[in-house]
């Protein structure tokens, strides 16, 4: 039951990230570099955090492999979102995704399969995507 929920959660996160990428791809000419830098920091960090926490809840016996996987996820998504704007935002998203991806399995394993913590991480992701959506609309 729980494994089912975790798998769907990961899938939903990646679906949301893809939708956000497609949405930002339309408006990338209108966004300045200051907002672009913040977008790449937020999206790379929060995706790496949620991926690491969800994966360490699901497979608690593969710590090193999951650290590698979540770091690669953070690096890739931060670079993709930063690459929409210019090379310096790419570097910013890369660095922040790397840092949070290395940290996130530690947080997940220290939380010791606590279910409200998982809900909290998902709420954090939803709220940050909502804020990002609103700030792109306003600019």
């Amino acid at each position, binding site marked *: 039951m729980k494994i089912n929920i975790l798998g769907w959660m990961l899938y939903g996160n990646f679906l949301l990230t893809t939708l956000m990428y497609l949405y930002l791809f339309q408006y990338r000419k209108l966004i300045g570099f200051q907002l672009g830098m913040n977008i790449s920091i937020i999206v790379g960090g929060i995706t790496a955090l949620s991926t690491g926490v969800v994966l360490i809840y699901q497979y*608690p016996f593969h710590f090193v492999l999951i*650290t590698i996987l979540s770091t690669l996820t953070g690096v890739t998504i931060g670079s993709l979102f930063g690459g929409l704007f210019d090379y*310096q935002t790419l*570097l910013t998203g890369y*660095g922040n995704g790397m840092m949070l991806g290395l940290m996130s399995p530690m947080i997940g*394993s220290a939380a010791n399969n606590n279910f409200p913590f998982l809900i909290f991480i998902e709420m954090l992701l939803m709220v940050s995507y909502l804020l990002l959506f609103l700030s792109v609309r306003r600019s």
Partner: protein
Amino acid sequence: MLLLKLYLFLSLIVNCVMGYLVFVKGRKSRKLFSDRFAIISSTLYSTSLCFTIGLHLFLLLQDKSSAIIISTVIIGAIIGTCIGALETFKSLLIGYFHGMTAALMGTMLGAILVDPSLCRLPSLYSLQIEQNIIGMSVFITLLTTVTFGLLLASFRV
């Protein structure tokens, strides 16, 4: 065990040499940097270099842990300040802060790899500590190499 220490020492040396080469290259072309690029490059550079140095130092000398944490934080702060001092005073502050933070995080990762019960990981991990240490060290070295490659590519601009 001795072989593992030798491997970690060689890996630390390789990382430091790569960091020094990037420093020399950045020092040559420091007049070309804009204000914003100076901040971003010093952030990324001090983060990745101090993270590897903290991790490898903690894994190498894991007996005296509190002295190691204090000395790695000081080393990270000094390296970050040196990197940030290539450009302006703003990038000096940013490099100092990120070097300190990354050294703390690297020692944290090393502490969890050495003692998995710190993070309530399952007890199976106590059987494969050396395997985990080598895997993580190889991955961090590869990640640092890729980061330095990106930085070197951006110094041309």
